[in-house]
């Protein structure tokens, strides 16, 4: 990633210099990463449960 392009990761790394004075520069993109990865993990678990033929517990639908 080269400036002026930005990614959540580069914003965090840019914000690390401001960590003690302006912490939200680093915290905000980090929270976005956590939420995204969390959502993908939950989706992955859901797909696995839905496709697992051995799963005994099925939600009726």
């Amino acid at each position, binding site marked *: 990633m080269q400036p002026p392009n930005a990614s959540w*990761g580069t914003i*965090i790394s840019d*914000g*690390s210099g401001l960590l003690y004075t302006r*912490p939200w520069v680093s*915290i905000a993109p*980090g929270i976005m*990463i*956590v939420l995204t*990865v969390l959502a993908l993990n939950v989706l992955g678990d859901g797909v696995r449960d839905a496709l697992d033929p051995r799963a005994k517990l099925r939600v009726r639908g």
Partner: protein
Amino acid sequence: MLTFIVRRLLWAVLVMFVISAFVFVLFFKTPGVDPARAIAGRNPSPQILAEIRHQFGLDRPFPVQYGLMMKDLFITRDLVSYSNQGQKVVPEIFAAAPATLSLVFGAAVIWVVMSIVLGIAAALLRGTIVDPLLMILALIGISMPVFWAGEVANLITQSRFHDTFLFSWVPPLGYTSFTQSPVGWFKGLLIPWITLSILYIGLYARVLRANIIETESEDYVRTARAKGLTERRVLLRHTLRGSMITYVSLFGLDFAALVAAGALLTEVVFAIHGVGFLFFQSLGNLDLPTIMAIVVYGAFFIVLANVIVDIAYAWLDPRVRPT
């Protein structure tokens, strides 16, 4: 047993050769990467570039360069860094290793204990609210990028809450060696240990919970219950032992990857000058000798971990023991 060891050693040599050759080729074939330019600094003249190429052997054929570097690394052991003039690479790595080993060992202790406790708790309390709560916590732990978690930990312990009784004991960032001051070593590493282990606690607790639930339905667990063993003995000697197989293989590989400079982000965030920190710097400087040496060092640990995992397998699971 002897053939096993010999075969393993040959395998290790092959793996190290393949990895080092791959990294070497990758380094020179990456577009826009010119080691001579990286050594020369800003705006070098073509003459200086040519001189540097000649001095570092960069104008020689590819296989010769590779061979020379491997000779310096393994036989004469006096491989010299490109970017840090005169710095010998092998002693530099050995000097950095204790910091990395301290970081990874401590984190491993925390993550093994915590993940086993949480995994068992979640599996046993299935059907109650505790199990989904623990698993959501685990997922959040898995989802946090380690460099960000480290920064947040620094913000809390070094700045915002540093003056409260909670974190006033936290020393400034950096690594104190154990021989210098055991207490300082422990204090300085506690926050990095916790930060590094969060991801693995979540991951391993989930794996262990799933495996315990799967093992519970095995015939040998029913047999153990039918024999009249106490629930505690069934859990520890039969269910848990059968569930640890995946766990152990995961652990061996993750642990080795971390020792092999895999904890570099944690080391950078907490200013721990270990092998990962060195790797991070040498990647930034295109310092090929250091990169190669660390890659070979890392491959060694990963091959070693594979051997240990195989042995642990046989110990845990009688089914895979050679007869």
